[in-house]
């Protein structure tokens, strides 16, 4: 499809001149140009919610930090994706995620294949400077094929979005507020008793950590496949 040239925006990300379509976000443009911006809740093919705040970037002329996943590009924008200030905030966010639940990488099904873990490694986190909360949260293994382990959930809501937007089942949702929030199936009932769940497993594969996994997987064996997502989205859009 030919688009009018006037619809192209030009901006700078980390000093590099880049071009973008007006409906694109800073994160999308950065990704196209191989500029790394950390994120956990955003996933290509799903709607964006700006929940994890890891993709906060500095934009010249703005006093506040802006989430790159939901901020559209503007003409002449000057974006900084990495600075001491941003790195500090990102590390603090990750450390708080680790303290919020019980993340024990060494015995996790997603060890070595976990987005939370690899991001922490990438940002050079070696210690957590906040006290751990050690909440007592349940493991629900009532589903025939899958397990939800709330100990490892970071409340990114990818499962909620993929279930609603791609599968169309809306089995998952989030219950409670703030620190008490939990992902739930149907009306907070055991997953195995959910009437809306189709058992498609998309939620398991978009989950960034070991919170959702296939039953019977041993430590480090839960590999997630997400390549299907953008294609599914594209096909849905074409049909519409």
């Amino acid at each position, binding site marked *: 499809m030919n688009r009018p040239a006037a619809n192209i925006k030009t901006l700078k990300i980390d000093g590099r001149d880049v071009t973008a379509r007006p409906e694109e976000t800073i994160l999308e443009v950065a990704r196209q140009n191989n500029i790394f911006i950390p994120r956990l809740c955003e996933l290509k093919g799903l709607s964006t919610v700006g929940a994890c705040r890891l993709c906060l970037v500095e934009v010249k002329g703005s006093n506040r930090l802006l989430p790159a996943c939901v901020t559209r590009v503007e003409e002449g924008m000057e974006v900084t994706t990495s600075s001491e200030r941003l790195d500090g905030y990102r590390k603090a966010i990750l450390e708080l995620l680790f303290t919020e639940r019980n993340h024990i990488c*060494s*015995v996790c*099904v997603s*060890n070595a294949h976990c987005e939370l873990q690899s991001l922490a490694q990438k940002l050079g986190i070696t210690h957590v400077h906040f006290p751990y909360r050690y909440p007592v949260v*349940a*493991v629900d*293994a*009532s589903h025939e094929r899958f*397990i939800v*382990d709330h100990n490892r959930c970071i409340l990114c809501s990818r499962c909620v979005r993929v279930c609603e937007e791609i599968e169309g089942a809306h089995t998952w949702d989030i219950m409670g507020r703030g620190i008490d929030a939990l992902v739930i199936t149907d009306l907070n009932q055991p997953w*195995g008793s959910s009437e809306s769940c189709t058992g498609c497993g998309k939620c398991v594969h978009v989950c960034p950590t070991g919170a959702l996994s296939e*039953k*019977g*997987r*041993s*430590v*480090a*064996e839960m590999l997630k496949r997400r390549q299907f997502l953008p294609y599914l989205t594209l096909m849905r859009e074409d049909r519409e």
Partner: protein
Amino acid sequence: MERRTIVIDPVTRIEGHAKITLHLNEQGRVEDAHFHVTQFRGFEKFCEGRPFSEMPSLMARICGICPVSHLIASAKACDALLAVRIPPTADKLRRIFGLAQVVQSHALSLFYLSSPDLLLGMDADPASSNLFGVLAKNPSLARDGIRLRQFGQQIIERLGGKRIHPAWIVPGGVSEPLTVQNRDAILASLPEALAIAERTMEWFKGTTEQFREEIASFGNFPTLFMGIVKEDGGLTFYDGKIRMANAAGDVVADGLDPARYADYLGEKVESWSYLKSTYYKPKGFPDGIYRVGPLARVNVADRCGTPRADQELAEFHELQRTAVLSSFHYHHARLIEILYCVERMQQLLTDPEILSKHVRAFARPNALEGVGAAEAPRGTLFHHYKIDEQGLIRWANLIIATGHNNIAMNKSILQVAKHFVHGERLAPGMLNRVEAVIRCYDPCLSCSTHAAGQMALQVQLLNAAGEVLDEVVRG
């Protein structure tokens, strides 16, 4: 003279944290001794609620030295939950994995922890009584020890991907088959390991003459001996039935099903230690005292099943017409087992089936209860799990090798202390012997490798009023 208590805290050159108290009577003679394991772990409790499929790796964290034993026993308990028969190649690969770990663990015990006593003597200066002291006096012996441990660890890494806490052993088998390159590399390393084992055996047999007094008093008393043996009565580390033999060397119980361990083994909790004491139920507590580990295994097994180890086993049995009773001979038994392990790995690796890609059986839980038992380097290891219908752990019980030996270890330090510790003043050699007898059993207390260097040793001689009469500080 007043009644006194001597406390050795912590005990050095062992795996984990422990202290020893020696109770002296008015005449300054030792009248009682306790081996206190002072650490609390809680694995049986905090695994509750976890999916059973995580258990092998979770339980492997009990130990950094013998994680493979926990992986094997745990995976076998999970196999029982799945109620599957694992593929024959997976069975053989697990065996090789276990043998490699026995070699590296025995090398650690013998060379790193006990060779200073054997080479430098029980009365050596504590400052040099360590691997560096061995390196100075007999560099080739120290190098052999380091090399042998490396040999075992490298095999574990080749099979499992990493040396400590590999996640390769899974319920139903193993996660990856063996590659030709790794098989060939392991096979190529076997001759050197065998040569080291042979050299060390010769050296060890040459040293025993100077330890007559220790041999006579280091846990030299009648007990039962327990170990897993193959159907034909041969030595095994992976699978078989439990055999119990008495001090005369006669089999008192054979073909016992490891899954029914609770029928014949009792566990007793003592108020002064976090380590449970296990006893043979038909004889009750404490008469049901038995020993496990290298000495017990070579005492109960009819044969090793490999040529060199069998030769050495025959020679070993010449030490005593009955079962070999002195715990000092744990070291000797350990060397026989190293020979066996290397020879047995050769047999398994040259089996053409070893490269098969079929190494895992898949199933959902088909039983709500499962027991896995295997011979860890230090003795028989049991993992026993109960799950709910969703596959989440509801209850777990573990019996670790060191627990089986607990009564015997306590009795051994009493025997050693009665023989060597007396008088008003403490000499390092006296107390080192008390520690050295514990080292014979190679207890795995915390089962961790994160302790660096030599731990401090503090011994206090207290009178009944708690006043310090004498004190020795090391480290």
